[in-house]
């Protein structure tokens, strides 16, 4: 099975979504910042939003084709769609929800099939409960089971797991993978969380500015960002303008000064000439924080700074450190506590040369 999507839709005077991509069987992540049009693309595939022009097809069966004037109604598309807010039927039980979309086979087989799917998603024991009476993770499982019970040709997931902790997410995705592996169904998983791309997807399509910016396997696409916008949406929280001071091609490094500061850093050699303007990117999670000035380190970049702000974001502590430029640094609560970090405390940031990405 292959889902092919060519889709153009004007969303406002300034923003037109124009994408063209193909999704093979397996999990493909549709990745992009909020407002990049990911949800609109999914809704277009499901038939809930009508593209201005384009063609959407599963194998050779068109779901939408503006040239041939084809627009298959939503109920006949056989496209499973799990919306961000799940939309479980509050008046039906978990079993009733899952059974809802199973086609009109006889009653006994319907119940049997629903039970089987409930069991594969480990929610059989909840079948008599209402959605309001089960946990968030169980609701997600119910929503997935409900969508899969219809035997969809394509499965669309709109950030269905974003609200869950990492362990629950991966467990649910493992169960989902088991289910789809036998059926060769293309799954499009929309997210704006960088972490989910690596954890969940075999392939990634990066959406930005209404276009497909890049696609391929997550490691290739997201670890070597070629464009500034891509670097930001790919999760490089720190992106700086800089000037090359000197380069050592034989060592594979170059020395740069961050624009507007006196901060000098050593980064991987990129071929840029001294004096050339470049962009540098480093992930917030790749920066070490030291409570005292470190000595005798292999890391070439040790920057003295002071903590500007600290706040908690889920299980992560997000710190902003002024060390010349302002760096965003991610820490665990444990590390934060043992270093007794607080606003105004002096710290040293340690960044390995190869943690820097040179963005051309």
């Amino acid at each position, binding site marked *: 099975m292959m889902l092919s999507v060519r889709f153009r839709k004007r969303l406002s005077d300034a923003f037109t979504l124009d994408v063209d991509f193909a999704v093979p069987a397996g999990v493909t992540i549709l990745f992009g910042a909020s407002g990049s049009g990911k949800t609109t693309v999914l809704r277009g595939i*499901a*038939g*809930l939003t009508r593209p201005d022009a384009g063609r959407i097809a599963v194998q050779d069966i068109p779901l939408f084709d503006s040239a041939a004037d084809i627009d298959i*109604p*939503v*109920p*006949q*598309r*056989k*496209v*499973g*769609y799990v*919306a961000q*807010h799940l*939309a*479980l*039927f*509050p*008046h039906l039980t978990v079993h009733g929800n899952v059974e*809802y*979309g199973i*086609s009109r086979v006889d009653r006994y087989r319907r119940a049997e099939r629903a039970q089987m799917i409930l069991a594969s998603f480990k929610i059989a024991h909840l079948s008599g409960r*209402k*959605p*309001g009476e089960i946990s968030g993770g169980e609701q997600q499982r119910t929503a997935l089971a*409900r*969508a899969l019970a*219809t035997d969809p040709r394509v499965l669309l997931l709109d950030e269905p797991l974003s609200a869950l902790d990492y362990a629950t997410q991966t467990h649910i995705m493992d169960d989902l993978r088991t289910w789809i592996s036998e059926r060769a169904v293309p799954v499009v998983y929309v997210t704006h969380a960088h972490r989910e791309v690596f954890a969940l997807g075999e392939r990634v399509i990066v959406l930005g500015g209404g276009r497909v910016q890049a696609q391929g396997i997550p490691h290739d696409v997201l670890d070597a960002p070629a464009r500034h916008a891509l670097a930001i949406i790919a999760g490089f929280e720190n992106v700086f303008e800089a000037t090359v001071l000197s380069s050592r091609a034989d060592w594979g490094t170059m020395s740069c000064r961050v624009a507007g500061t006196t901060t000098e850093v050593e980064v991987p050699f990129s071929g840029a000439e001294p004096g050339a303007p470049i962009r540098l990117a480093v992930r917030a999670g790749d920066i070490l924080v030291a409570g005292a000035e470190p000595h005798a380190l292999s890391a070439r970049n040790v920057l003295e700074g002071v903590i500007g702000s600290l706040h908690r974001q889920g299980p992560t502590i997000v710190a902003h450190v002024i060390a010349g430029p302002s760096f965003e640094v991610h820490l665990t609560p444990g590390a934060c506590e043992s270093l007794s970090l607080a606003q105004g405390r002096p710290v040293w940031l340690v960044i390995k040369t190869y943690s820097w990405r040179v963005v051309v």
Partner: protein
Amino acid sequence: MGLRRSGALTPETSVDWQAIALTLKLATVVCAALMLIGLPLAYWLTFSRWRWKFLVESVVALPLVLPPTVLGFYVLVAIGARSPIGQVWTTWFGHGLAFTFEGLVIASMLYSLPFAVQPIAAAFSQVDPALLEASSTLGASRPRTFARVVMPLSLKGVLTGAILSFAHTIGEFGVVVMVGGNVPGVTRTVSISIYDDVQALDYASANATALLLVAFSFVVLALVYALNRKVWAAQPKP
């Protein structure tokens, strides 16, 4: 039928059972007919994207602001022997519509229409559109979505619409006087009967009938609201 009303001039108290029975029959028929018409109308009013929809909404709400006599007057003109509707009806059934039970039903339906449609439409519009989308992506047609999602989630509003149209029909006076007149067993409803008693200075009979109507209405409403509460106890709060 228990005690029979023996005439306006007799001094003893009498409850007009015939009028009560007729009123209940009228209210039941009107309520049932309004559910048949009101559900699709409310559905259309809620989900249609027609740009002139507000005009239909205004027409549906008209009986709320018009004096019943105005409404009754136009209904009488519309169904009278000279009107096209009256003529067609006479051709089909051999008699006119004015001053008949059927005429009364039509007039009462118009009069109580907003009381049925508005609570139902309000309940329909409270249903999360995401649930309707979910239903359609699961392969359900619109009628199936209506039966399995919209209706169950709107039961309270539908019930309220039914109660209000029933109660409102029981209490109407002006429309009945205009369209139905005062034919015992055909168009003389409770409110007309009470009015007659009062005109005849038979306050005791008026009081007996009126009191019975009050008690009956209260019991019906209390029963339905109690049931309503039970049905909704299992629902998660929105």
